[in-house]
């Protein structure tokens, strides 16, 4: 478990409505500091600028899908230590297993329960190695 609590979350999601719901859930209920990015191509810059503890990543996005972006982050020395959690509607058993295999910190399925999302992320954070 990391020594410090989970505070800063970067959420990558192209759907504006879902961005709004997730932001409300994470800020109002989870009391996190949240940055939302809609364009997957801007994620690396956003990470470097915002400095998140954890990235919450959608799977299907225009321009670049979640797994491809995840591989890019893993390959980048500046971003590879930041844990990534997938929040996806395309959550079949083998696909989730593949993400875990790639090194994802966790997977959560859409539709998510906004009342429970902060606690689910804290549980994943708590399970991470120091």
């Amino acid at each position, binding site marked *: 478990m990391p020594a410090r609590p989970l505070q800063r979350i970067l959420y990558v999601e192209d*759907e504006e*409505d*879902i961005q*709004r*719901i*997730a932001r*409300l*859930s994470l800020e*109002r*209920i989870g009391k996190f500091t949240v940055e939302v990015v809609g364009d997957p191509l801007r994620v690396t810059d956003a990470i470097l600028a915002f400095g998140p503890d954890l990235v919450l990543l959608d799977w*299907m996005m225009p321009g670049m899908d979640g797994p491809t972006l995840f591989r890019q982050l893993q390959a980048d020395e500046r971003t590879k230590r930041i844990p990534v959690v997938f929040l996806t*509607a*395309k959550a*079949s*058993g*083998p696909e989730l*297993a593949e993400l875990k295999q790639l090194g994802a910190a966790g997977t959560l399925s*859409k*539709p*998510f*329960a*906004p*009342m429970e999302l902060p606690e689910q992320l804290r549980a994943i954070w708590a399970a991470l190695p120091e």
Partner: protein
Amino acid sequence: MNHFAASASALRVARTDDRVDVNPREVLADRVEQLYAQLPLGIAGTVLVGVIAATELSGGRYAEIVAGWGAFVFFVSAARLALYLKYRRSANRATEAEQWLRWLGIGALANGALWGFAAAVFFPSQADEHQVFLALLLTGAMSGGIPMYAASWPMYATYAGGIAAPFTYVLANFGNPLFSEIALLVPAFYAVSVAIAWRLNQVFSSGYRLRHAYQRLAAENAELNRRLQRQLAELDDARAQVEASGRKLALFAQRSPIAVLELDPHGRIREINPAAELLFGYAPADLVGAEMKALVVPEHRTEFDVQWRQLFETREPMSRQRLHNLRRDGIGIVCEWTVTPLVNPAGDTVAVIAQGRDITQELEAEQMKKEFTSTLSHELRTPLTSILGALQLVNSGVMGHPGKDIQELTTVAERNAQRLLDLINDILDIEKIESGKLTLVREPLALDEVLREALVLNRAFGDRYGVRFALRGDPPRVEVNADRKRLLQVMTNLLSNAAKFSPEGGTVEVSADCVGGRVRIGVHDRGPGVPESFRSRMFSRFAQAESALTRQKGGTGLGLAICKRLVEMMDGSIGFAEREGGGSTFYFDLPALRPPAVLS
């Protein structure tokens, strides 16, 4: 010469014939029959010659003796005639042949004695010319007896002996040197005659044996012919059946919508049906003799070679073999083939029957279905995520408290959005299960922990219907090899069904019992039960009982179908029972990984 040659030939046949199993009693009966057949002629001859002799000799001083002798001839002949008539009327001629032969022998002896008496009494008393007459008559009687008694040489010997012995005696004692010499010739004549009778006897016997052997062979031959005819008839029937089957098979192949090709062991086409013509766009004349490989897209011919080799190595039929084939118009199609090698008794593959159909459109449809499923999954869940999320945030109160009416409406909206999500999830699940794309992640699970977790997860749902979930006693500490998420899904389905149909304030009990190597998990409610008419189809897709209550409670009608398939994928079985005291019990059995005793 001819006579002897014929006899020798007959004897040779008889010896050859000895190997044939002939019943001697039947041969004897035939000989007796032959002797009796000659008897009327013999009697007639005796009477005729007797009358002539009596007439000729009655002029002398022995007229009374001649008359007496004539009466004797008449008496003997009458007795023999009576014997003949009795024989003819007898029903036991064959079985009593020996007895009839003895009677005939007595008759022959009497007949011989008749002529012997004539020799002994009349010869010395007659003048020279009558002696010549008598000598001629006696030798004639001896010679004439040969054909009469040839079927039994001892009978002839008796008969002729009755003549020769007194005649020889009379000649020898006559005192005339010429007669003395003739007296020497009579026994010699007798011996030759008996020898001839003996030879004829043998010829007759051989003939009869041959006749019986022939009759037996003819009977056997007739029996063989009958059997042959029967077998020929059976063969005809079998051939007719084979022809009918052949016609039927040919008809099947002709009318079949499946392409059927017969290939030789080198992969060359021997015959095709109309469906194959349609499939490839070739006339039979273009395809017969061509290589099947030519109908495969060039880039996929290596696959064809591999499959063809495998077919000849295993000599077993292969089904669902996909092959990229090429039509005459150059269009590539994907076909699914069932290939059957025809193997002869020596184990050689003599032909291959290939049955195939074009599945190109099916594959395209499958791909479309897959894309549709993916779209359904993403495009429907995405707006639902927003709808449900927004409603849950509103209903939780974190955004402030709306008025009571608004709260009621947003609660209705959230509940129905959840139903829509459940429906989408169920449809996706059943589609994945039925297309074989659902893979389970099975692991040993402590059943009691999973059951407790299921109760916790569904507590909120139960609260909505005012129903409490409770474990019945302590579940056994047993492990099952199951997919945790899917096992919880089964429990959630059964618990939510039970909650929906239970009376408010009721308790739904969950039990787990080990029976043999299996564990039975039961969910017991006090609801109205399952209508009898619905029970047989309640585990089918989109099955819902027709009742106002069901419509009111909602549901997709897929929940139990999904449960059934998931349980079966985990090597279990699902069922229903009426609960004692009212209500229903839905249960499923899973194999216990380890017996509870070991775990405890």
